[in-house]
């Protein structure tokens, strides 16, 4: 076992009896089993196909993995663009510091429940959500650490037909070094609707491991929009896993903007459980320096007549590395499936590298599926054309990079957030191009 893996196991042994909802026998049993499984398998290594391009174990060796301290009390509100990106929207805000929920929301509409993980785990539905594996790929991944060590998280529960009147914004601040394991649960009952924003920001901490799992369950005709901005501190490690089980004719849309951390992996597992549902898993990534960003996405068409679309756009400068691994699975009976998947990467430097592995696994015959991947650099002819009209080289590059990312932003259904994301990208170019000049 590596030192990092041993730290997780030891942390569990030490904290086991103080973890939330430890009076629930099923949960304690689940946790014990999770840590035992993890102790047996260890951290994922690059010989596993799903982890071929991302060496999590290696970077975790250098990270501070003891639990980040709990903090309560007033905090200076950080002036972070990853938070301000959502300022145009009137929204509910909940704050996590080092992975621990700080605030309680009041004045919520009838039928809306926002609570912390410990309070919610006694509900049967929470048990189902925590226990269910959405994809076989999860069996070999690191969510076992989270399951054992999850300390807090946000639980959003919407009753039948309830529409959350304003977006809910989760602000995750890393103030102290260390590891934080959080678990969010989102259940939208039939016909319910919500928009959730998330911002991950380093606010003082430098060496930390942000580990988050979000389990989503959508009832018939429920609708969830999720927009996340990850701008963790430069040396941080960010590991996010989102699982979504989609009911009939439901709508799920997720957009992830990745800007921060030394190493990040954003995993999304979607499973269609009811016919006629629609899923969009999209994102934009912009990295520089020696950053490494991994987008991993599996969409499982387990039932007929569902549509999924995935688009990730990645811009890599300096010696940064991008990864896209995506798989669309169409089960034998899942006829009339529409599955699309695309990864496009733009390399701004000769030292940058992109690894893309789009996959289709189709067992039904009456389906429409398409996938693809491109990796390229800025079009020199286009640069010349723009410059021949008086636009200086930096501005011309910025125009072309913006245009490239914009196709990803176009997939964001929320207009206010879309504009915010564009502005965030523009900030990134300004900084990057200035450094290049």
């Amino acid at each position: 076992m590596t030192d990092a893996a041993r730290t997780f196991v030891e942390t569990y042994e030490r904290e086991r009896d103080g973890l939330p909802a430890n009076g629930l026998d099923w949960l304690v049993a689940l946790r014990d089993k999770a840590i035992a499984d993890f102790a047996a398998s260890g951290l994922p290594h690059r010989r596993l196909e799903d982890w071929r391009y991302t060496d999590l174990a290696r970077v975790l060796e250098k990270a501070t993995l003891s639990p980040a301290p709990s903090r309560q009390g007033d905090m200076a509100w950080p002036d972070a663009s990853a938070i301000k990106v959502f300022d145009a929207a009137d929204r509910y805000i909940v704050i996590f510091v080092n992975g621990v929920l700080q605030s309680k929301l009041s004045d919520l509409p009838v039928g809306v429940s926002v609570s912390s993980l410990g309070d919610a785990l006694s509900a049967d539905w929470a048990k189902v959500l925590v226990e269910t594996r959405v994809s076989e790929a999860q069996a070999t991944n690191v969510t076992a650490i989270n399951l054992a060590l999850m300390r807090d998280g946000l639980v959003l529960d919407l009753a039948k037909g309830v529409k959350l009147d304003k977006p809910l914004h989760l602000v995750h601040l890393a103030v102290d070094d260390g590891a934080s394991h959080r678990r969010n649960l989102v259940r939208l009952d039939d016909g319910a609707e919500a928009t959730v924003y998330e911002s991950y920001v380093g606010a003082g901490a430098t060496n930390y491991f942000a580990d988050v799992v979000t389990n989503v369950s959508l009832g018939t005709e429920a609708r969830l929009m999720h927009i996340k901005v990850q701008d963790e501190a430069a040396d941080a490690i960010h590991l996010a896993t989102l699982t979504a089980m989609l009911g009939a004719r439901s709508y799920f849309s997720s957009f992830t903007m990745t800007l921060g951390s030394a190493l990040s992996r954003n995993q999304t597992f979607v499973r269609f459980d009811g016919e006629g549902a629609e899923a969009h898993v999209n994102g934009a990534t912009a990295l520089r320096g020696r950053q490494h960003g991994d987008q991993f996405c599996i969409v499982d068409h387990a039932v007929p007549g569902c549509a999924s679309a995935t688009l990730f756009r990645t811009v890599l400068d300096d010696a940064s590395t991008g990864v896209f691994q995506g798989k669309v699975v169409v089960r034998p009976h899942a006829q009339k499936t529409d599955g699309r998947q695309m990864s496009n990467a733009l390399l701004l430097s000769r030292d940058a590298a992109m690894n893309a592995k789009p996959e289709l696994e189709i067992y039904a015959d009456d389906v429409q599926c398409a996938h693809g991947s491109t990796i390229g650099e800025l079009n020199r002819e286009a640069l010349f054309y723009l410059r021949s009209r008086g636009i200086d080289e930096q501005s011309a590059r910025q125009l072309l990079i913006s245009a490239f990312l914009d196709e990803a932003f176009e997939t964001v259904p929320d207009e206010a957030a879309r504009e915010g994301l564009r502005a965030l990208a523009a900030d990134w170019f300004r900084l990057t191009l200035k450094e290049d000049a």
Partner: protein
Amino acid sequence: MLEIKNLHAKVGDKEILKGIDLSVGAGEVHAIMGPNGSGKSTLSYLLSGREGYEVTKGSVTYKGQDLLALSVDERAAAGVFLAFQYPIEIPGVTTMTFLKAALNSVRKARGEDELDAPRFLKLVREKAKPLNVADDMLKRALNVGFSGGEKKRAEILQMSLLEPSLAILDETDSGLDIDALKVVADGVNALRSPDRAMIVITHYQRLLDYIVPDIVHVLSKGKIVRTGGKELAGELERTGYAEFAA
């Protein structure tokens, strides 16, 4: 305005221009005609600053300064404009966004104030109207899915907005039917002025029926082999380039 002296240039190892001498004064319209491969496009790209061309001998002086020492965008800011034979498609950048960026860059370089959105919009509409460029076209990504005629009209619109001192039109007639050609030629003619010089590069005489040049040059194998008045174009149309080709 433009003085080209004994200009030699190569692409890779191949010498394309082999001693060009050309003098273009303000207010003049020069046509450069010649067979395929004579170096017409090389000359136009070289003047606009495209990479990949190596000048081995000679000089290009524009308004008293060494044009070859300027970067691509500096040349544009100084008033050099190339209307492309094949305008590049730029997905994701709307024509409007591009025009505004270009105009304000050039204005800034010339020490003029940048136009805000309402003033810019008014100006673009005013310039777009005679060229039959509709608002819908301005909202589309630059040149993406434009017809041949639309691309050339967009080029002339850019020229009209940027108000260059030296405009180089590279095979502007290629891919145009006669109606589109007239619209484009009218647009170009409207820009003729005593302060502006134009170089019209073309294989065929047809364009010169609409944009009537003051002087016609014949380029062959990297050299100007003949210079004459506008009647030279008609003569070439009858005899072809055969006498210059061998």
